[in-house]
């Protein structure tokens, strides 16, 4: 699946997007966050406080409990500050 990152999540991860191939035990958004956080320094910093991370699956907001269930694109970003 494709992962995209925005704002300080993008800056800490060090890239705007990438292809991910998580193991089959990673079934929810929250699982994916935990899996990413263990990938190295930038990821650890980006995902150090999972509660501050918002996610979207195929461009629709998704809770951490949401199943990845074949989504083509997952996005991680801080709380929105537009408007």
């Amino acid at each position, binding site marked *: 699946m494709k992962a*995209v990152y*925005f*704002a*300080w999540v993008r800056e800490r991860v060090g890239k705007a997007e990438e292809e991910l191939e998580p193991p089959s035990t990673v079934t929810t958004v929250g699982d994916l966050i935990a899996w990413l956080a263990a990938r190295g320094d930038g990821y650890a910093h980006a995902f150090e406080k999972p509660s501050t991370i918002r996610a*979207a699956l195929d*461009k*629709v*907001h998704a809770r951490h409990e949401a199943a990845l269930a074949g989504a083509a694109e997952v*996005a991680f*970003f*801080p*709380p*929105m*500050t*537009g*408007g």
Partner: protein
Amino acid sequence: MATIRVQREDFDAAAESTALARGRMDVGAVVSFVGYCRDEGGRLATLELEYYPGMAEAEMARVAREAESRWRLIGVTAIHRFGKIAPGEQIVCVVVAAAHRGEAFAAAEMMMDFLKTRAPFWKRAIRADGAAEGWVEAKGEDDSAAARWDAAG
């Protein structure tokens, strides 16, 4: 059918407002909201707005549809800019046309509250004093403003 735009260039809120009412005899009320970039008492030099292409437009359309499902609206327009925005410049506008003013006011305010907390835009502040630039933090009061529509709905 709402008009939704995400764009780098400035917009003409007045033209958007006039467009919703022009030639219509059933519009009784048009409420327009324009959000401007403040200079925070001189501390802010520029805002830089990042957004999630595709999702931003989709989310703004979902917010518009939610407003249209709650109130009898005749026209809805929402425009959000991205990129560098200087103090005094326009950032966002929402325009709602309806037969009656109560519906137009409620819809415009709900749309702004929801856009703030749901539309995937992020502001980075570049400081006038050369201090480190930083991502603007989300405000709890914006969550509260959005939440009251759930309670009311």
